[in-house]
């Protein structure tokens, strides 16, 4: 399809530490359509952040190794462009928002500088122009522009995250990678920030990859979903496909273990056990140990992607079973 903005194919990433090799990302395929929001859902250690950082090629160079794969963005493979070219993409065409607003801002520079810096780099603006644009950005994220010359410690957590978003959106990027942008915030502040993000996304026509562990956030803000588990995408599709026609046992388990405000149940149905150690993944399906439907073949061979309906792709033998 031509409208795909970003396409990731068979991406594999390992981390090498002193003691072991961690298989962080194990052959994932992903795509984001123009103007859409993809929710990347998964628990701690599922490899979500690694995927996002690999798109921008800002993984820690010494430990992380990209083994294979292709990240196509506007027809170019980001993994093979030069560092120079990549720098022109970072912050300009693809921007990233980080999880913890408390640490994501440089404590000894003004927030104004931090926003205008990216403008100066990519749009070749003069100091004055950059300042003007940065002030506009501040107003856009709901911060009065007279606070341009203030420092991060003078802002609350929610405000800081707004600044981080302003930095991300300053150059009007095609794609915004938002890594758990609201996890560190309180619920009411989270609602404010998410709403603002959704609005800006519409206004600027940006595509978004929203990394989160909160299915509620996904339901409210995303067009399509990819569920990550142990470095794989076990299920992906549109929100309707995922929320109304759950196919993968892990996704099913995720929904069942969620305490819900909108239902009355007295007992949750958790997934048993733990995520496998990414340094020692099982031979077969990575979910086999915890899966209530696991069969013999699940332990032996890795299931392949199965397309249930157009766009709804699941990595499981059970759905491929032919029923």
């Amino acid at each position, binding site marked *: 399809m031509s409208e795909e903005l970003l396409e990731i194919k068979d991406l594999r990433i390992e981390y090498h530490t002193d003691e072991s090799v961690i298989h962080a990302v194990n052959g994932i395929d992903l795509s984001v359509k123009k103007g859409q929001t993809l929710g990347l859902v998964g628990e701690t250690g599922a490899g979500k952040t690694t995927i996002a950082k690999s798109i921008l090629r800002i993984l820690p160079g010494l430990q992380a190794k990209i083994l294979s794969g292709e990240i196509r963005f506007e027809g170019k493979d980001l993994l093979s462009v030069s560092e120079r070219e990549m720098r022109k993409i970072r912050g300009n065409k693809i921007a990233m928002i980080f999880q913890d607003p408390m640490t994501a801002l440089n404590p000894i520079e003004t927030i104004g500088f931090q926003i205008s810096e990216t403008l100066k780099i990519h749009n070749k603006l003069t100091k004055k122009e950059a300042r003007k644009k940065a002030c506009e950005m501040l107003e856009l994220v709901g911060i009065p522009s007279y606070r341009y010359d203030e420092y991060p410690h003078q802002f609350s957590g929610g405000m800081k995250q707004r600044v981080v978003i302003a930095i991300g959106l300053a150059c009007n990027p095609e794609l915004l990678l938002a890594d758990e942008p609201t996890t560190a915030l309180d*619920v009411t502040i989270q*609602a404010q920030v998410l709403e603002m993000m959704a609005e800006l996304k519409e206004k600027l026509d940006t595509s978004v990859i929203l990394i989160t562990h909160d299915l509620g956030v996904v339901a409210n803000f995303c067009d399509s979903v990819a569920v990550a588990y142990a470095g794989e995408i076990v299920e992906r599709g549109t929100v309707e496909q995922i*929320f109304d026609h759950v196919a993968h046992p892990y996704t099913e388990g995720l929904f069942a*273990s969620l305490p819900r405000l909108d239902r009355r149940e007295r*007992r949750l149905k*958790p997934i048993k056990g733990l995520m496998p150690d990414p340094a020692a993944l099982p031979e077969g399906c990575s979910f086999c140990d915890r899966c209530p439907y696991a069969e013999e073949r699940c332990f032996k061979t890795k299931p392949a992607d199965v397309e249930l309906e157009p766009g709804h792709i699941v990595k499981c033998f059970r759905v491929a079973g032919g029923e």
Partner: protein
Amino acid sequence: MAPLLEVYNLKKYFKTRGGLLHAVDDVSFTVENGETLGVVGESGCGKTTLGRTIMHLLPPTEGRIVFEGKDISKPKKPELEELREKMQIIFQDPFSSIDPRMTLGEAIMEPLVIRGGMSKADMIAETRKLMDTVGLASRFENSYPHELDGGRRQRIGIARALSLRPKFIVCDEPVSALDVSIQAQIINLMLDLQEEYGIAYMFVTHDLSVVKYISNDIMVMYLGQVVEKAPADELFDHTLHPYSKALLSAVPIPDIHKKTKRISLMGEISSPVDPPAGCRFMPRCLYACERCAQPQVMEESTPGHFVSCCRYKELAGKEEEQ
């Protein structure tokens, strides 16, 4: 029967350079035997301080705490020791609430060792039993906390709290640091334990969906004060206080067909240092009026449902009109 825990007008102030920080300000509630009181609120609302004050980890500034009919506001040392066998606490962060130098077995056994009066063999047996109860395999006995995952570590915390057979446990955000699938395991475990041992919980959290699951009564806090208090279902069905409503509506529901109408709040939580006398939520409230600058009184709207808002009746009426 009298309630297990009664708290009257509890206050906890901290002296800071800027003035008095009202962490907990005039909070009253009761907890029945074997039931769960959920305490919800955002960061800075004083919910954690409330738990610690009841546990006497922080001395209360003012107010009365009655446990099993006995006033324990200012306990003497032996009283306090006796009390702590009946009241326990589970901490939020299982990464930091266990001494990193203790093995799992030692950590669970420690309360027994401190209480004394048991032979070493009995203590070891009891430890194994506790580990079994909370679902920790005995092979972990000699592991260090940093070798375990968050879920197992939280199980250690629960086993420790359980070891003295308390009647009441303050749970301070016990599942907030955990992943969803693990969180569900721990919540179920806590429910099972409550059923088996008849423990009463005070469950402090910021997560409304969790609190809904586990609580009989729910108390919503804002800036050190209780704004609304009601049985769980009642609170969710007939939310009265504007803050509770906003809080509820802010939780994204994982269902694409039920898009909630969000009530967006203005601004952020104000400073708890020397707060004004009126309603603390006033600066952010959509319905604030002049009367809100007066001190608010807790009113009982329906039996068991308390709300601290001078306009709740009008607002309820308004909503119906719409």
